[in-house]
């Protein structure tokens, strides 16, 4: 099967939670992709919603771009929020 048949699966465990990448499935079309995702990734545990996205529709960085994309993010300490105290009672931060 070609990469056209590859779908990435995102699973949301509860209302308001982020859809997290669970894995991928092969399927010939949208409906079967959704059903396959349901069968492969949601049969154990709590699930609120599932997304499937055609893998070739995802725009991704390439490994050689890593340096210019991500390296500068870790060398400036003031970008990190650890100087702030988290107010009491704030959850899910």
């Amino acid at each position: 099967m070609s990469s056209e048949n590859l779908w990435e699966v995102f699973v949301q465990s509860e209302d308001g939670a982020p859809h997290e990448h669970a894995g991928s499935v092969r399927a010939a079309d949208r409906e079967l992709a959704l059903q396959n995702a349901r069968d492969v990734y949601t049969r154990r545990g709590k699930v609120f919603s599932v997304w499937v996205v055609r893998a070739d529709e995802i725009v991704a960085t390439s490994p050689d771009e890593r340096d210019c994309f991500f390296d500068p993010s870790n060398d400036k300490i003031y970008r990190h929020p650890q100087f702030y105290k988290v107010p009491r009672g704030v959850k899910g931060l």
Partner: protein
Amino acid sequence: MRTADNRLILGHRISEWCGHAPMLEEDIALANIALDLIGQASSFYTYYGKLEGKTEDYYAYRRDAGEFQCIPFVELPRGDFAQTIARLFLWASFDVLYLENLTSDSDQEIAGIAARSLKESKYHLRHSAEWVLRLGDGTKESHEKIQNSFNYYWPYLGGLISSNQSLKGLFFENVSKHLSKATLKTPTAELITSNNHSEFLEPLLAEMQFLPRKYPDAVW
């Protein structure tokens, strides 16, 4: 009891695909469906077991073919993928109506089992219905295979509807509507009303019951 036996035997037939389905995702889908059906049988057996003082394992593993009340429709071999899908589609089309009816049963426990099973059966219907569309309206070969599969199972529907005449009209209406959507012909063959077991039940039981028969003291 008949509905429990039907679920167990059909579940076993579908479980035969485990490790053999045309692709990994469908393998898992069919195994899920088989497990759903066997789970439904287990719920019904547990219910009867309480009335008769027996365990669910007794019903599944300690009875001979003659004591099973399942119908030939579920006993027939799984055949190829098209046959499996055609039978599952017919089964689920009927089962959704059957269970919907059963959710208003006067026995609360039966109504509860029906409500839980109904959610699963609706998915079985959705999954098999989508495959019927794709095989029917797919290639010439897939069209022929699924059409032949419907022709093959059709007469055995007699067993499924014989004790549920009130669902018959809606069932045939739903099925033929979907078949024509899938560019398929609704078979016109006459229905078989006898529910005598087919020759396929005994070999199935021999395989399914082998372990508890050989090792009667085995525990889970």
